[in-house]
């Protein structure tokens, strides 16, 4: 396992990047199940945000629902604050195609009209299929890793490469 992929170190970097962009009294945070919630919990704690953490399960908003059906375990989305006018940090573990983020934003807008959404991810592995970009990413792989990256957790959190990467030429 690549030593650069130590999740604790990556999280520290995210906190450093986020701190100047949040107001702990006002800014809210939402994690996307499952890995995004783990990351969001750590960030939320480290940044000392006062608003309770929100959690999203985007199963009902997936654009491939009619092809792949319902996820076997859907959890309830829970946004315990008023979304209208709020600055929100949306957190996920791995940004890949961007479709999850699109679905998550659609769901957030069904709760209200936020003032802004900032996307923070642990890993941006490239390969985006829609125009979604992370504002903050602890690790940017630009598609070079090839294989599927998965965050294991919740305790301890560690990144795992599930399939072997294509040999970089």
């Amino acid at each position, binding site marked *: 396992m690549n030593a650069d992929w130590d999740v604790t170190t990556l999280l520290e970097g995210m906190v450093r990047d986020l701190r100047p962009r949040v107001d702990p009294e006002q800014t809210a945070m939402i994690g996307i199940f499952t890995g995004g919630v783990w990351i969001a919990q750590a960030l939320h704690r480290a940044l000392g945000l006062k608003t309770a953490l929100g959690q999203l399960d985007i199963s009902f908003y997936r654009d491939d629902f*009619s092809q792949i059906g319902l996820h076997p375990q859907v959890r309830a989305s829970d946004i315990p604050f008023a979304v209208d006018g709020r600055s929100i940090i949306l957190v996920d573990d791995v940004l890949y195609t961007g479709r999850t983020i699109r679905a998550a934003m659609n769901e957030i807008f069904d709760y209200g009209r936020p003032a802004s959404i900032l996307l923070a991810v642990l890993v941006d592995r490239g390969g985006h299929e829609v125009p979604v970009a992370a504002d903050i990413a602890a690790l940017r792989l630009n598609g070079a890793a090839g294989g599927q990256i998965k965050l294991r957790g919740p305790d301890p959190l560690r990144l795992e490469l599930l399939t072997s990467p294509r040999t970089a030429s």
Partner: protein
Amino acid sequence: MSLSTFRFGDGNPQYDAQGRLRHLLNTEGLREPEMLQILDTAESFLSIAQRSVKKTPTLRGKTIVNLFFENSTRTRSTFELAAKRLSADVLNIAVSTSSTSKGESLIDTVDNLMAMQVDGFVIRHPEAGAAHLIARHLGDSALVINAGDGQHAHPTQALLDVFTIRRLAGPIEDRVVAIVGDVLHSRVARSQIHALSILGCPEIRVIGPQTLVPKELSALGVHVYHDLQAGLRGVDVICALRLQKERMESHRLPSLDEFHRRFGLTPERLQWAQPDALVLHPGPMNRGVEIASEVADGHQAVILQQVAHGLAVRMAVLTLLAGAAGGGENHA
């Protein structure tokens, strides 16, 4: 699709050959994983009703037909709202305006609607087996949900009842549940018994007059009581049934008053059950017959929660079946 070529898994027309739940016709024969998946998914849909936009895009572009050959307010409107909250288009067809009154057969009606590229049917019909007939006819070309067929089954009502018990009374595996009233004519009772036993309810009781409780129920492992006091002792959940006055032509009861005196739920009689036992009723209620107003409006009754739960459960059923239609897995 011809009937002779289509083969469903295990001869249970609710499942396809790959074991996916394609239709919801009855709680009998429903497997526990799918039942739990419906209940768990319904938990997620429950919170959507609290949002400013009470919709998800899940069934966008799909068309669901409510085909009702019997009157219904609650079931039809919650199915309609469930489909609409999932962003499906809904077509409501009631028998009084349909061409079956001009002699068109049920299958012809369905075929005509299928020619309009609809994706699913929610059907209520006075004949037992009507939804089965349509599901066998359609195979995997559209989803079919039984919203009540004769005295046979009403699976979504039973699912919303077990969902209500699970949420408000705790784990079904250690709750004693009594179903009270006109069991003989009740499709709700039959579906409740199957749902409760699949979820591991340790003791299911049925309480009612001898003329309104079928004898073969004991074979299902159900405990039969003809005395309300004995039957309610130690019970955690009471499922009242509507007395089907319109089905009472065969003189099975001396009078409604007599029924109320022996089996009507009153505040005094509730005390025979566990303190704070839940009281469920599928509606519409005959106040003063199977249930006294003081009970129906009292703190132990969860009848309006049942309606809210029914919406979430029906959204979950539609989602699960529609998801399987795209080739997706719906195994828990």
